[in-house]
């Protein structure tokens, strides 16, 4: 069966009704890769690509509100530095025209650039059920394990709420200038009250924050010494592995490099 709801209510109803029996599809930049590799079959699909307003981005109450279907191309134009740069550093224009924020969050890859940027920005992921309503999950609680999230099988990621007034920064290390799977990526955010967030991709089973590094900046401020101590702490906060892309040692070292660069850029 192929469902192509035209409005949000219909989409939620279908999701509630079919739950895990119907595969959710929108931009297809993860799902169809798996299809083309014969890793999955598609027989029952819930296509969200025509839900009215589902790619909208609005400004509300000091937040940017990204509807779940907001594409990376649209996100790249929003003045949230880390998120916009993360969106631009993902694939080429064809990928950006299709890849969505909900898709990134649904896949929850530990390498997900967008997820890293959101994690450094205290975003809220809004999970909606047709009748139970909206659950607003702080991004720090959203990723629960390797490619596992707080999303239930009968819910949809309907929007992501990102504070608009943070100062953010982005770093990405790759083997090539374009279309990178990151070797290591990182995002930093500072709230208007000075709270610091440091988030990384590709160095743990999920995207991850370096909480002891954040604590050092919170406690000791932004001196060169504090930044160096935070970089060292961040390297201990992460759990990279050896794989065919890079070694754990290198990744850990790059967390240090990325942390220094993020903090120097964010330094008030």
């Amino acid at each position, binding site marked *: *069966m192929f469902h192509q709801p035209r409005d949000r209510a219909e989409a939620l109803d279908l999701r509630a009704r079919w739950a895990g029996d119907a595969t959710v599809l929108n931009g297809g930049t993860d799902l169809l890769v798996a299809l083309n590799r014969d890793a999955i*079959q598609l027989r029952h699909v819930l296509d969200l690509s025509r839900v009215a307003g589902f790619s909208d981005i609005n400004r509300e109450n000091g937040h940017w509100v990204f509807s779940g279907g907001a594409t990376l191309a649209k996100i790249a134009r929003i003045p949230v530095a880390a998120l916009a740069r993360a969106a*631009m550093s993902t*694939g080429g224009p064809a990928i950006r025209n299709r890849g969505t924020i909900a898709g990134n969050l649904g896949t929850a890859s530990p390498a997900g650039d967008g997820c890293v940027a959101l994690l450094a920005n205290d975003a809220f992921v809004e999970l909606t059920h047709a009748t139970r309503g909206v659950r607003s999950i702080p991004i720090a609680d959203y990723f629960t394990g390797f490619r596992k999230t707080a999303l239930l099988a009968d819910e949809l990621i309907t929007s992501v709420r990102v504070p608009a007034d943070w100062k953010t920064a982005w770093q990405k290390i790759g083997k090539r200038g374009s*279309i990178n799977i990151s070797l290591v990526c990182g995002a930093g955010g500072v709230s208007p009250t000075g709270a610091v967030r440091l988030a990384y991709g590709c160095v743990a089973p999920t995207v991850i924050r370096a909480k002891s590094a954040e604590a050092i900046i919170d406690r000791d401020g932004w001196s060169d010494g504090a930044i160096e101590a935070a970089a060292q702490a961040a390297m201990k906060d992460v759990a990279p592995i050896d794989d065919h892309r890079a070694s754990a040692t290198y990744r850990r070292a790059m967390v240090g490099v990325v942390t220094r660069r993020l903090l120097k850029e964010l330094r008030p």
Partner: protein
Amino acid sequence: MSETQVPQVRVTCTVNGAAVDRDADLDRTLLDFLRDDLGLTGTKGSCLEGECGSCTVILDGAAVNSCLVLAAQTQGCKVETIEGLANGDKLHVLQDKFLASGAAQCGYCTPGLIMAAKVLLDADPNPNEQVFFEGMEGNICRCTGYAAICEAIRSAAKEWK
């Protein structure tokens, strides 16, 4: 017992201005629909994962990797492929400049690349380097080393309408 009973979806769209209205397998990608159902073999499949851009077509004015779109998703959409670019015997300016610059060697990346370049120049006929890379970085060429392609696109930009 077999798995080959695939649900059919009615696909109603336009391809290069011509109306299309026919059934397709639910899991048929737009790439395979164009090539195997409609016989428009100009669009190519290569990496089949959105890394190379050989399958690039224009969907409602935006460049997309047709290997990552289901035909079923194109209801009411406007699809443009390489076959729709030339005007009879008169080549599109991009095609002509590709020939003039030697920007096609094996030619396999060429259709997808030209479609991506069309989207780029339609949005900005005088792209700076940053915009140029952002528009073209989704397309890989294995033969040319890109120089002749850049020359062709810049040359076409000068005559863009």
